[in-house]
């Protein structure tokens, strides 16, 4: 299985972004997704700068695949304009995160991949997009191992399993919802249009807890992420067994290299050893994979069947 670094979901400064990806050039990931997927007001890097960053990484690490990720909620004409530039970049594969991107890419016969915010819940939907140029999909985060197995079996029956790569969001705060409203601005009593770019102050989002101090969500501008980090480290062998191609790790501001190395090291082990190589981190969760509420942490040992 390959390892990918998903698009940066948070808002960081120009220097922070450059520094982060500089360190990723050497990291043992096979695929790097670049681009702004959450809010069009985040302009630490504009489209040209993302594109030149893509070229820089490609030049110093030619083995890595670079993919350009696009905005997840398209509302304004200006956003469509930027989206068209991503789609027409000519050099790199594009990740569609909204059906507008699927439309632009498919009508121009440009191959594409889809991110977890495109609603693909069955193989029939994938088969339609495969004819339109889909090469890879990232499963919506709320789907389970059981559903995935069913989809892969159906793709096999349709004779297109080998034509589509399957990627699973495996590590990080999960993107759960998108809105026209900005919740980070709301938390500061600011209107969206005068948000003061507050997201810059929260490199890993803003925590939301219940009145009983239970972690619930993470505010990230117009996006709501899970309160706990999804972590399928203990489930890697299961994913390999059912035919997952790519493991996606979502960027965080600290210790990202450690996470990547841990996953890489495990993937490089023979599969029989992987099953014994587990860890438990109290604040992580894996419920969705087992068909349970996403925020639950289930012991994989009880689910080996």
């Amino acid at each position, binding site marked *: 299985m390959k390892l990918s670094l998903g698009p940066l979901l948070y808002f960081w400064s120009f220097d922070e972004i450059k520094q982060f990806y500089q360190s990723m050039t050497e990291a043992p990931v096979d695929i790097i997704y670049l681009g702004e997927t959450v809010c069009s007001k985040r302009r630490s890097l504009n489209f040209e700068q993302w594109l030149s960053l893509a070229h820089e990484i490609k030049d110093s690490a030619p083995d890595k695949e670079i993919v350009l990720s696009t905005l997840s*909620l*398209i*509302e304004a004409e200006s*956003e*469509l304009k930027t989206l068209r530039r991503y789609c027409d970049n000519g050099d790199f594969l594009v990740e569609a995160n*909204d*059906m*507008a*991107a*699927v*439309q632009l890419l498919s*009508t121009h016969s440009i191959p594409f991949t889809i991110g977890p*915010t495109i*609603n693909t*819940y*069955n*193989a*029939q*939907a994938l*088969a*339609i*997009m495969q004819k*339109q140029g889909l090469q890879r999909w990232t499963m*919506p985060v*709320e*789907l389970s191992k059981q*559903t995935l197995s*069913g*989809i892969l*079996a*159906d793709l096999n029956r349709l004779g297109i399993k080998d034509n589509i790569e399957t990627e699973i969001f495996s590590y990080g705060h*999960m993107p*759960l*919802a*998108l*809105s*026209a*409203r*900005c919740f980070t*601005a*709301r*938390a500061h009593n600011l*209107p969206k*249009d005068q948000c003061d770019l507050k997201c810059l102050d929260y490199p890993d989002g803003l*925590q*939301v*807890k*219940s*009145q*009983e101090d*239970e972690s*619930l*969500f993470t*505010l990230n501008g117009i996006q709501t992420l*899970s309160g706990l980090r999804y972590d399928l480290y203990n489930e890697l062998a299961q994913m390999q067994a059912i035919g997952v191609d790519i493991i996606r790790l979502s960027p965080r501001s600290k210790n990202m290299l450690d996470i990547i190395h841990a996953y890489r090291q495990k993937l490089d082990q023979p599969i029989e050893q992987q099953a014994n190589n587990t860890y438990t981190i109290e604040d992580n969760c894996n419920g*969705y994979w087992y068909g*349970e*509420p*996403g*925020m639950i942490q289930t012991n994989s040992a009880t689910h080996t069947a």
Partner: protein
Amino acid sequence: MIELICPAGNFPALKEAVNNGADAVYIGFKDDTNARHFAGLNFNEKNLPKAIDYAHQRGTKVFVAINTYPQPEGWSRWQKAVDMAADLGADALIMADIGILDYAMNKHPQISRHLSVQGSATSYESLRYYQQNFGIKRAVLPRVLSVSQVAHLATQSPVELEVFGFGSLCIMAEGRCHLSSYVTGESPNTCGACSPAKSVRWEKTSNGLESRLNNVLIDRYDDNENAGYPTLCKGRFSVGKNTFHVLEEPTSLNTIAILPELDKIGIKAIKIEGRQRSPAYTQQVTHVWRQALDTYYKDPEHYMPQGQWMNALNKVSEGSQTTLGAYSRPWQ
């Protein structure tokens, strides 16, 4: 003329919608193939034919929502729902999943296909995708766009546009929200349920009345506060030291004041939310909206929303207060 599309969770509600002037009613089946999969609600193959007859005899159309996303084990159930609605004479199918849209187009090409709000199309490029690939006739827009965005969309749209006019307010882009499954395991996309009733627990404690969803504390009410249904996005949570409605206060959408704008933009239909509500709700809301539309078309230049309409609508609103929601964007 803008069509009035009203909700019916059961036969009595359907009759109220028809008798109070709905141009179309929308309904769903008694399972997870639609986004209001609630106990005791919806239609089956026994009462649907009677319901369709009742509506058709009085010149009202019937739209059937099959607007959740089938997973492999459910695929045949969704197909069956499409076939049943088609065979019983539904006037349109409201769908979101592209696999199901494709199935309906090939199997029952004569029945109109509407893109559900759950399809989350917020731009004309997205609408073109559904129109070009699945021949949709109409799309229901998510409640995230402002009036000027809707207006711009309408100038470019390849299909008729239907917008929400009244009812509970989703603040997330519909079809793209997993908050409910994160806490309860069930979401609108997978199960047709948001913050499902079976996960709700109410408890009177020394801290006040507490509402929980799968054991997670959603809100806590003093004796003098009105308690609302514990929908996740309407809970009171904490960010830092502050406890407040982190995502949204419980309010209802009401666009009766901007009816002329919606008409000028070229909106084809207004949808009333609330298949889960009572027949009395459907009666009240349909009645008021019919009056509003008729008043408007009689004399468009002098249209003014009447106080009695607003009072009647406020009475049936969640949180007893209404807003223009994303259409006016006070939070922008």
